[in-house]
């Protein structure tokens, strides 16, 4: 599955610099779309038609030609000719103009649906490919015109031809993204039971397609009210979790799709307690551990695509678990989680530094209310690696750097606030010099969090205050004495240091 990304890049015949430039443009477009909350738009999922046109690209078809191909496909006598007609139609449908002409012609969709449901298997397949082409259109009107076909696509999901099922799934996935009208039809038409049946397929490609379609369905803006409750009512959840179980049968491409699907379910906060009862926490923890092991073993590109949603799911689910329950969740008293997370943090640092904040968010949620895991941080010697994340300016953007520092300090506060036994392990050590560096920064939040940590440290480990004074800590604090948001705390820390 990972080879897909490589082969896509291979298709494009241009230099490395041009590729990078295109990638940057793509990213910029996606970021803009996300800020406008338009990220689910299919326009962004398809590369531009000029790039898509390679060998075998056909010209735009006019009405007369479309009619001719349809007639031949529907009424031709030679089966091969009929198939070829549909192939020609499909090629023409790669162009927006042909798509538009097609959907505005009277009876064209009816004929295509007729071919989709006829008794010649290969004509069905070619008709489905034409529909797939239409579903991929940049224009929603074209996708919406495919509505008459959806009930049939759903029925075909319960068939046996895995290629065909896969095609139908991707077609449905595309239609789902583009049109709320389609989604409004798909639910009563039975998409949830159809997916629940498909998810039991032994074919990896089908499973990946199910995951894709499901993830698109779950991204719909009406998903929390209208879609997720149905999903949670079905057997889909159990199957999803099963497909995310680590082990020899775990397929990363499949797991990625279901991990993202699970993320959309969890962050919609519809019924996360149900997920916990179904063992989601346990599955996610095991998967995290597995990822940490795999990451060390292989040079596989793309594991961050799976690590990201797993971390998000775990972190958001942890926020659901009440303080008293934490002790009851055995998985959360396993120090391997913390070990695995740090291995992943290092992996992110190498491959995708922009994911560091997400990893640290999980670390916060793991340590906030857990004496066990705070102790693990100490006993596994992870404080020093954590402190290394405070000086990342050459790897991440300035904003990320500040945010990461803030998160690191918060985690350290989680540890320190648990009392003297914890602070005694935090210092002596490299913590104080690091804190002096952060206090010297100009970002108010970072300095504020440093002050909180200093105060906890001095309260529970008074000797640290002495060392602080010797390191010229007071002078380092002076520059913030006038800062409104920091004044009180600066003063308090200064006083504490002097009187310890």
């Amino acid at each position, binding site marked *: 599955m990972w080879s897909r990304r490589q082969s896509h890049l291979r298709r494009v015949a241009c230099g490395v610099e041009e590729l990078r430039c295109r990638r940057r443009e793509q990213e910029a477009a996606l970021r803009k779309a996300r800020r406008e909350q338009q990220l689910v738009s299919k326009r962004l999922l398809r590369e531009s038609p000029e790039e898509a046109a390679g060998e075998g690209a056909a010209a735009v078809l006019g009405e007369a030609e479309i009619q001719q191909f349809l007639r031949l496909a529907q009424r031709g006598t030679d089966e091969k000719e009929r198939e070829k007609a549909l192939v020609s139609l499909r090629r023409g449908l790669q162009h927006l103009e042909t798509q538009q002409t097609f959907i505005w012609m009277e009876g064209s969709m009816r004929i295509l649906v007729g071919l989709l449901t006829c008794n010649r298997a290969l004509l069905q397949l070619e008709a489905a490919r034409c529909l797939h082409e239409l579903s991929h259109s940049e224009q929603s009107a074209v996708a919406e015109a495919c509505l008459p076909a959806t009930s049939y696509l759903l029925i075909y999901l*319960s068939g046996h031809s895995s290629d065909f099922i896969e095609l139908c799934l991707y077609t449905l996935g595309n239609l789902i993204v583009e049109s709320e009208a389609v989604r409004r039809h798909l639910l009563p038409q039975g998409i949830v039971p159809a997916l629940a049946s498909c998810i039991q397929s032994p074919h990896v490609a089908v499973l990946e397609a199910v995951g894709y379609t499901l993830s698109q369905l779950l991204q719909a803006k009406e998903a929390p009210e209208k879609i997720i409750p149905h999903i949670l009512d079905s057997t889909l959840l159990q199957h999803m979790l099963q497909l995310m179980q680590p082990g020899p049968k775990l397929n990363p491409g499949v797991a990625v799709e279901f991990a993202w699907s699970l993320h959309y379910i969890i962050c919609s906060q519809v019924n996360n307690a149900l997920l916990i009862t179904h063992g989601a926490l346990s599955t996610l923890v095991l998967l995290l551990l597995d990822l940490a092991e795999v990451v060390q073993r292989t040079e596989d590109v793309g594991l961050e695509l799976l690590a990201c949603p797993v971390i998000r799911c775990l972190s958001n689910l942890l926020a659901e678990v009440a303080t008293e329950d934490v002790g009851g969740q055995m998985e959360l*008293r396993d120090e391997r989680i913390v070990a695995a997370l740090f291995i992943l943090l290092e992996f992110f640092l190498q491959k995708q530094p922009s994911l560091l904040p997400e990893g640290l968010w999980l670390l916060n949620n793991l340590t906030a209310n857990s004496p066990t895991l705070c102790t693990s941080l100490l006993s596994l010697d992870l404080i020093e690696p954590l402190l290394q994340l405070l000086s990342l300016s050459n790897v991440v953007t300035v904003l990320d750097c500040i945010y990461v520092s803030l998160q690191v300090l918060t985690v350290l506060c989680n540890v320190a606030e648990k009392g003297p036994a914890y602070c005694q392990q935090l210092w002596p050590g490299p913590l104080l010099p690091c804190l002096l560096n952060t206090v010297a920064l100009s970002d108010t939040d970072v300095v504020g969090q440093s002050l909180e940590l200093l105060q906890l440290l001095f309260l529970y480990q008074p000797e640290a205050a002495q060392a602080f004074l010797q390191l010229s800590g007071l002078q380092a604090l002076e520059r913030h004495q006038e800062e409104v948001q920091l004044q009180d705390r600066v003063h308090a820390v200064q006083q504490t240091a002097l009187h310890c």
Partner: protein
Amino acid sequence: MLLPTALRARVAGAPGAAEPLPVERNPEARAAPFRFVPRLVRFPREHEFFEDGDVQRHLYLQDVLTQVAEAPEKSRVPEFTCQVAGCCQVFAALEDYQHHYHMMHGNACSLCSRAFPSEHLLDTHILEWHDSLFQILAERQDMYQCLVEGCPEKFKTTQDRKDHMVRLHLYPADFRFDKPKTNRGPATPETVADLSTRTLADDGDAMEVCCEPTSLTPARVGERRTYNHRIPSTICFGQGALRGFKSTKKRNKHH
């Protein structure tokens, strides 16, 4: 980031943790002006915190969908004929035959040779067409079950069922898998071949599902399919069970 060397081994080791250090809080810790309290943080769907990861996810999807949209290369073989009795279709590519077999013979009724798009519809057909007990019961109670999987509703007639599917399940009014039966005689094995030579009329010949038989065929009581036309879904005609339709591109890659 320099991680302790023992860390990697720890992940692979047994579950467990060191005994937690005793927690002992001093109320002064949370006294003003200090305000730190450990907090669980959750982020909702659209939060900007998720921006980077979401963008990466979509970049990945762009790659995948571009590949999905490409038609697969077919593996050409010398021409051969479908071996199922009565079917004389000829093929020159394994993928074509695979699809044909699954669609046309995968869910076929052994009693009348009609092909169905799914097991569910085949089972429904057998029940409604070939089970005389069903016919008897249908005279007295609502027996025609809604075709949408998971819907428990049953109806007196197929028309009622169809109305329900159109109204409630938003099925198209000209739904093609539930058309009234045209009067064909009892099907012979040659029927399949006959269909293949008939040209498509206005709507074409749909794969049939089920409907009220207009004439009661001399059905054998309680008989189900005499032999199983169903292929185990893992059979893949010699190309490995894990093939997807685009995996022909993967053939030269090592995994």
